[in-house]
């Protein structure tokens, strides 16, 4: 449904997006993850036909965004980082205008309008001027605008930015519900968002794709060694050295401690399950074993790992994107 091939975007001498390729199938929710200034917005803008790429190709629903922009745009809904609202218009006037320029047939306009307003829960604001909306409502009106023409592809640039926790949960649920019929690409730098909503993740850093996979695979792939969390009531004794002496354990670190209870992160050789030995050791000492569980590498850790290990010397790429983003302010 979406295909990006060797996409490069340069702003003068700086490269904001460098040879990015990825695909998204119909019904998939693709998370676009990266630190600020990584080239997420630029990539999305190329996909929506807002700006052309310097090199490479982008196809939306089989149409090249540069060669057949009208056909591609007709099948794309886009929520930019700042919702593009006209402050002087009321919400329903705004959406009516959007429906018109997006080519929604006259006979379907009012029913489409009603259904997207219901879906994004903005019906109670229909007659309010856009200038008077709160940030959360603006975001949702922006989302409603993107959904109006029932596009095959939805491109959402940080859809939950600026929302309160309740709205974030609602918006995520809405986006999840959109997958299936629509192909969704959403960008974010909030990691839990990706693991909760997306089927697949593209991690982008300094204009380059550093990882593409499902959240589970990414977690598994990057977990080199097994980590256990062990909480022990050692009655004042030092459990750290005892745990280190268990065969197969490579490293023990204290993660929390209060009074006589201490929690430890225990690393073991990869592929070796040391839980039985750990439990036996603790019990044989007469200590209390309060907790023993495997620790999964969180997305935060994965993210930090992939974005820092690939320390390509393209500092200016990030600078370029930051400049581009600043120029939009």
């Amino acid at each position, binding site marked *: 449904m979406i295909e990006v091939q060797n996409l490069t975007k340069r702003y003068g001498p700086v490269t904001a997006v460098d040879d990015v390729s990825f695909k998204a199938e119909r019904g998939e929710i693709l998370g676009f993850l990266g630190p600020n200034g990584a080239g997420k917005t630029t990539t999305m*803008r190329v996909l929506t036909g807002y*700006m*052309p790429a310097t090199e490479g190709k982008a196809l939306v629903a089989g149409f090249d965004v540069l060669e057949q*922009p009208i056909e591609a*745009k007709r099948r794309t809904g886009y929520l*930019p980082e700042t919702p*593009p609202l006209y402050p002087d218009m009321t919400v329903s006037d705004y959406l009516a205008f959007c429906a*018109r*320029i997006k080519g929604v047939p006259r006979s379907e306009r009012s029913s489409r309008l009603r259904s997207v307003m219901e879906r994004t829960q903005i019906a109670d604001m229909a007659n309010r001027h856009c200038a008077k909306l709160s940030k959360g409502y603006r975001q949702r009106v922006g989302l409603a605008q993107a959904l109006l023409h029932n596009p095959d592809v939805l491109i959402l640039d940080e859809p939950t930015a600026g929302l309160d926790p309740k709205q974030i949960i609602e918006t995520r649920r809405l986006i999840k519900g959109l997958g299936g019929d629509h192909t969704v690409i959403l960008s974010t730098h909030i990691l839990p968002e990706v693991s909760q909503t997306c089927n697949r993740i593209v991690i982008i850093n300094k204009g380059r794709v550093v990882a593409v996979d499902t959240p589970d695979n990414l977690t598994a792939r990057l977990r080199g060694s097994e980590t256990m969390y062990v909480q022990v009531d050692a009655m004042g004794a030092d459990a750290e050295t005892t745990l280190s002496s268990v065969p197969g354990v490579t490293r023990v670190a204290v993660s929390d401690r209060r009074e006589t209870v201490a929690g430890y992160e225990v690393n073991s050789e990869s592929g070796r399950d040391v839980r039985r030995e750990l439990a036996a050791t603790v019990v044989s000492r007469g200590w209390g074993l309060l907790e023993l569980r495997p620790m999964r590498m969180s997305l935060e850790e994965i993210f930090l790992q992939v974005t820092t290990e690939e320390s390509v010397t393209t500092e200016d790429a990030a600078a370029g994107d930051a400049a581009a983003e600043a120029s939009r302010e």
Partner: protein
Amino acid sequence: MSNVLAIAHKELKGYFASPIAYVVIGLYAIMFGYFFYALLLYFDRQSMQMAGLGASQPVNVNEQLIRPVFLNTTVIFLFILPMVTMRTYSEEKRSGTIELLLTAPLTDFQIIAGKFLGAMGLYAAMLAVTIPHVAALFWLGNPEWIPIVVTYLGLLLMGGCFISVGLFISSLTKNQIVAVMATFTVFLMLWVINWIASFMGPRTQDVLNYLSITDHLDDFTRGVIDTKHLVYYISFISFGLYLTMRSVDTERWRG
């Protein structure tokens, strides 16, 4: 075409939703009213004198009142039209709504033509303010209506030139103050460009005279539609809109 009208409609609504339309039309109404009154007083005195001298020919309302009024009031547009065009692109760029237009299934030309028509709509509303004055003359005297219609046509074309230049300048910046000042300067230059004509060689003289936007209005106010002037105005407007298209496209590549 439906897309063009959608944009035009949105633009026109935007003018009337903000104070701009009311300020612009109000200011124009005040100034036009004053010009009309002043020239009416002159006309009044003139016709008295003519009658006193026992002139055989009656005074001509078209030539001696309506024409000077419209020629003199074109200067008002010089100040007012930059205010109409300043926000067309600048505002959309500043607020980010340009992203909505450029990612909607619209061509650049449809957007530009829509914005042009929207501004023309407001300009036409300004001209409509003058209709009661002219209508009063029909009630009091008997002017010819054809030259008046042709004058309005000429005014629409002239305003179109100003608006197309204003659109172009607005597409260059996201700062409305810069847009309004630059537009005003360009208008003023186009206005006075032939002042130095008489000091130049014959070739340059012709070119400078030809470039002056307002000189071309003269024949229209006489009730004459000369193809020369039509060609000038229409090619001027097309050129302005073309430059705007190039500017929007360049902006897109630069990002």
